[in-house]
């Protein structure tokens, strides 16, 4: 069943885009599609795929691993080096050897975001990255995005309900909401 139609954007290196729209408009769906986790009903996605790193509502944190082990694992899996400063960057230095299961909601979120700095992907797809973060951590994350990621030629697509303080172009998805007679979807054949 189509959720959004006619959405189209193209980002050059160093550019970011903020997705906005009411609950249930289809931000998560769009990000997952761009990440290649579900096929689009129609249209094409170019250039993402192998270059994209996706951060979902859930953080994929294993309670049994420590913070340091978690980040090391993702670095290994993506065949990247673990950057020295990632613990400072996401304010995790004190929590380095804490098992991830005992983190508070916001601390866990910071760990989930730190993963993105570790895997070294150029295209970051962020689904409400600042949920549960306090104001200070939000600022910190915004400056990470601006100075570390975008400044180095990365691309970011961010779905969010709150203002991150980044001056990025905003795409409001409301006008693209699929009309009732929109084509597409596996059930289409039965109409």
């Amino acid at each position: 069943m189509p959720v959004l139609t006619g959405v189209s954007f193209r980002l050059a290196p160093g550019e970011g885009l903020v997705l906005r729209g009411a609950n249930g408009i289809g931000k998560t769906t769009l990000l997952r599609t761009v990440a290649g986790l579900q096929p689009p009903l129609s249209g094409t996605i170019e250039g993402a795929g192998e270059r994209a790193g996706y951060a979902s509502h859930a953080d994929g944190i294993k309670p049994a691993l420590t913070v340091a082990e978690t980040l090391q694992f993702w670095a290994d899996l993506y065949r990247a080096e673990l950057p020295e400063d990632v613990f400072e960057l996401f304010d995790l230095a004190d929590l380095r050897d804490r098992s991830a299961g005992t983190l508070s909601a916001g601390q866990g979120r910071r760990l989930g975001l730190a993963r993105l700095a570790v895997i070294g992907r150029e295209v970051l797809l962020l689904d409400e990255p600042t949920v549960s973060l306090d104001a200070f951590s939000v600022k910190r994350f915004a400056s990470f995005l601006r100075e570390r990621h975008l400044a180095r030629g990365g691309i970011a697509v961010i779905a969010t309900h709150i203002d991150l303080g980044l001056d990025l172009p905003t795409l409001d998805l409301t006008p693209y909401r699929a009309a009732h007679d929109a084509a597409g979807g596996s059930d289409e054949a039965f109409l």
Partner: protein
Amino acid sequence: MSIWSYANPRKFLDTTEPWVPWLMWLSAAVLAVGLVWGFFFTPEAERFGSSVKIIYLHVPSALMAINAWLMMLVASLIWLIRRHHVSALAARAAAPVGLVMTLIALVTGAIWGQPMWGTWWAWDPRLTSFLILFLFYLGYIALWAAIPDPDSAADLTSVLCLVGSVFAVLSRYAVNFWNQGLHQGASLSLDKQENVADVFWVPLLVCMAGFVLLFLALVLLRTGTEIRARRIGALRARARRSEPVRA
């Protein structure tokens, strides 16, 4: 016009719909002839006595149990390769029919086993592989039922059907290796000398034709049901989408 045009649900329904009642009645008639003939107008066999009459239900259902799985395998392949919804739904529709056929073969066999072998159940290879087939049907149906998204369900059950078929053949050999059986050999094959006498053979053939027709009728009917159920889902979904956007 290509045969694939029948993969359109509407076209499939329009084409098959008129056939279903006829097939139903035809299969009922053929089955009635075969079964009445078999039950009332056949002699007793020397080794089996009157218990041979069970064969008129046992063998056709056993054949259809296997054929239903084969049909599901073909339909699954068509779905995986060409992604025609009707074919996935036909596989789904055939599974419960195959399950019941397997059950009938098992139950009649078990009842027959009591006087012939002195036991309800023996771990004979043919019996055992039918039991495994029964489990495959159960798992397949349960997987269909457990997955909410119909397309994902079609994909996953098709993969299961493929892998399951390979393992079903494997277990057939394994089971043969494991135990030498009590069961009748395939004396129905036409090229063998020890063919059953025509008095049994002809009504049995009629019954088999009846089972084939009944299977066809049921699968067409049930495929139609599945198509309509999907259509309900599609209409509801469209209605939900068309509800006014919140102010």
